[in-house]
């Protein structure tokens, strides 16, 4: 059993902050003009970097039984150019993977960033020389966000221009920060993104991640012969798929730099700003949804693999069952909150956890043809679970052998707003952050083979209907969008969505290394020694 020093890894690696009550975020990018200044600055901010140390649960907080959580978090990551600028020797950099050194712009062909997603259309901040440092702040309140920002900006001003906060995010405000935050409905924070889907339901479960053991259900890797609805059907993924310095799913250590302590307990972070064409999405859903059996929400569900309220298509074939499923979840949540008698509370806690696991506890083994959840639906493409064995029991070493090494930890929040009268040109979308041990084998593979292509799903060149880079021109009718999507009909004919436009466009991003606290300390001290 792998044990990770959670005090040494940065907090965002093991905690999706949004789920811990941090609905607001700011992302900034720094350029290092002086290595010495950068090291001094890093020394100053290092004690404030948020680690993965376990946080007491929220209820213990309320009763004052535990130290308070920080009002705002701070995390830092470095691009390849940033590591060099802060003084990491060439020999250490040489051992880092090629895709990391090339950065997202250098990999745009592989990522399908063409047309409106091409780097020349990215935000101004990506048009200059490489950014060096990624800084992220997550906060529990607006006031905390302002305080943390002001403190950080003061720390940067103290460098006398040695470390500069770059501008050019194309957002509102003073342009120094990419603002992001959970959307709200009637003043209440909701875990939805702009297309209306509840997001962030599932996150890979790996050995040592510090999450409760029952989370392995639906979030670990599928096991042969087990029941996908309970823990017998799942096992934790190897730590080395997400954290460097630990064995991975191929029984070996992921890449490490010299000295090894530079990379151990760290990982690679992909920052990607994805603009959402919300108006186009709504228009397409309403026009196509008129003819689609079940209407616009059913069509949206067929594309995502989940109903907008989060209920999985695999469990809930229609709107009524999806609503009932989520109503039950809400009822249990409320009952659990109100319960006072300990035995009753324990029972409700268990029932609630059980219902919540059902959001993820499926593996497509009983839906190979996609009659319930389409083979090309977004959540099925990005995590096919056991589906790629195509029901050929025993064909592969494990049912999800082709999936286990392609899993991604997803972090991030929406940005901007999308009121009913919104247009595609409005500034709104999602800041996606992916954490993985190998950007090439994990993030890039999923983007390339599963989002922007369909052969592994036996779908020809079909792409992810939600986030794929649909062809800008239809082969038959130039000028019309050229995407297409097949919704299998089970015992009925399939339904085809034609002329699918690109609903999501890339607005910028890069590849970063998220060091451990130990490595940050080495960087600050300037004593990274590869020999």
């Amino acid at each position, binding site marked *: 059993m792998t044990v990770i020093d959670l005090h040494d890894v940065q907090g965002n690696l093991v905690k999706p902050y949004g789920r811990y009550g941090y609905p607001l975020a700011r992302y900034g990018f720094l350029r290092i003009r002086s290595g010495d200044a950068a090291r001094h600055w890093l020394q100053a901010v290092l004690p404030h970097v948020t680690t993965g140390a376990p946080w007491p649960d929220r209820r213990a907080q309320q009763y004052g039984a535990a130290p308070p959580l920080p009002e705002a978090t701070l995390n830092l990551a470095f691009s390849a150019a940033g590591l060099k600028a802060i003084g990491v020797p060439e020999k250490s950099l040489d051992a880092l993977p090629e895709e990391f050194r090339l950065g997202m712009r250098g990999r745009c062909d592989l990522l399908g960033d063409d047309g409106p997603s091409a780097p020349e259309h990215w935000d101004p901040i990506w048009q200059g020389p490489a950014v060096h440092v990624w800084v992220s702040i997550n906060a529990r309140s607006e006031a905390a966000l302002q305080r943390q920002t002001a403190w950080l900006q003061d720390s940067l001003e103290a460098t006398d221009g040695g470390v500069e906060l770059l501008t050019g995010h194309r957002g509102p405000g003073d342009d120094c920060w990419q603002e992001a935050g959970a959307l709200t409905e009637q003043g209440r924070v909701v875990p939805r993104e702009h297309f209306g889907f509840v997001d962030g339901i599932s996150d890979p479960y790996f050995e040592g991640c510090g999450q409760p053991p029952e989370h392995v259900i639906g979030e670990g890797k599928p096991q042969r012969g087990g029941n996908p609805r309970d823990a017998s059907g799942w096992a934790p993924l190897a730590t080395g798929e997400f954290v460097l310095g630990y064995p991975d799913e191929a029984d070996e250590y992921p890449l490490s730099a010299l000295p090894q302590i530079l990379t151990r307990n760290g990982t690679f972070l992909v920052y990607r700003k994805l603009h959402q064409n919300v108006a186009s999405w709504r228009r397409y859903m309403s026009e196509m949804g008129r003819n689609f059996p079940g209407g616009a929400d059913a069509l949206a569900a067929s594309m995502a693999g989940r109903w907008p309220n989060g209920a999985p298509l695999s469990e809930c074939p229609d709107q009524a069952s999806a609503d009932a499923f989520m109503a039950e979840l809400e009822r249990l949540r409320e009952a659990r909150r109100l319960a006072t008698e300990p035995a009753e509370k324990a029972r409700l806690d268990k029932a609630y956890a059980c219902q919540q696991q059902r959001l993820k506890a499926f593996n497509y083994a009983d839906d190979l043809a996609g009659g319930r959840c389409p083979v090309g639906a977004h959540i099925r493409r990005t995590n096919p679970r056991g589906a790629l064995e195509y029901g050929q029991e025993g064909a592969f*070493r494990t049912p999800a052998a082709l999936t286990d090494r392609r899993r991604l930890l997803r972090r991030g929040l929406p940005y901007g707003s999308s009121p009913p009268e919104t247009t595609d040109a409005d500034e709104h979308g999602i800041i996606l952050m992916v954490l993985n041990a190998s950007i090439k084998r994990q993030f890039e593979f999923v983007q390339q083979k599963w989002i922007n292509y369909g052969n592994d799903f036996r779908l020809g060149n079909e792409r992810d209907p939600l986030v794929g880079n649909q062809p800008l021109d239809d082969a038959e009718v130039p000028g019309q969008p050229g995407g297409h999507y097949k919704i299998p009909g089970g015992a009925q004919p399939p339904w085809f969505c034609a002329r699918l436009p690109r609903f999501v466009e890339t607005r910028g991003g890069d590849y970063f290394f998220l060091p451990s606290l130990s490595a940050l300390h080495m960087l600050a001290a300037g004593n990274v020694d590869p020999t």
Partner: protein
Amino acid sequence: MSNIAGKAYAMNVVTPLKPGQRWLARLIHWLAGTRLLRSKLLGLRTLSLIHYAGWAILPRRRWPRLDSAQPSENLHYDYYLFFSNFNGSWEQYVDSFSSAIPAGLDLMWWRNVGYPGSVPRNPFHAYIEHNQFWTHHYYSAYPLATSNDVKAACRLRPALCELASRADRLSAQEFGQRYRTLLTEQQEHLGLVAESPVVSLAHQAVVERRRVEQTEPAVPPAQESGS
């Protein structure tokens, strides 16, 4: 030089067999074609990344010698020649083997000198890379299609021929029913293909080569013969 023809990648791997293992390797090859080992190869079929692949054995004393003036070979080992036409990138192919069907792979290769086993992945990667030979001219009859596309299309055609042969003789209602039955039964075989997406940075080299070819047409071979 190109290992890529649209969606197909040509792989050649030439490796020495451990002494005395040739007959066992032959036996395994023979068994692979029979029921006894076919289940071992179920994984290979399910991967469905491969158009055609094969293994040939070249005994150390039987390399083709066509002229008494031709030097004869003087080798210690028999050799294994592996070839494959697969879809996707080199990494995807090699990774898929290593993570999904390590046992099948080891069955075919474990009698090879220096074969590290298919797991862990990195030594296996290094082994294939070390012994791979690049293709100089590669041709696929359908660069736009993967093996999955060919199989799906060939399943679909007879149904289309059948409906087309009688479509104008049916009542509209009857036609509609048969048409919908066809769509229902054939739904997994319907789909569109297009040019291969970029799967590796080698793609840029292919594009560049095409550009050069188009601006400077190749010299006809007959004029170029050097002897």
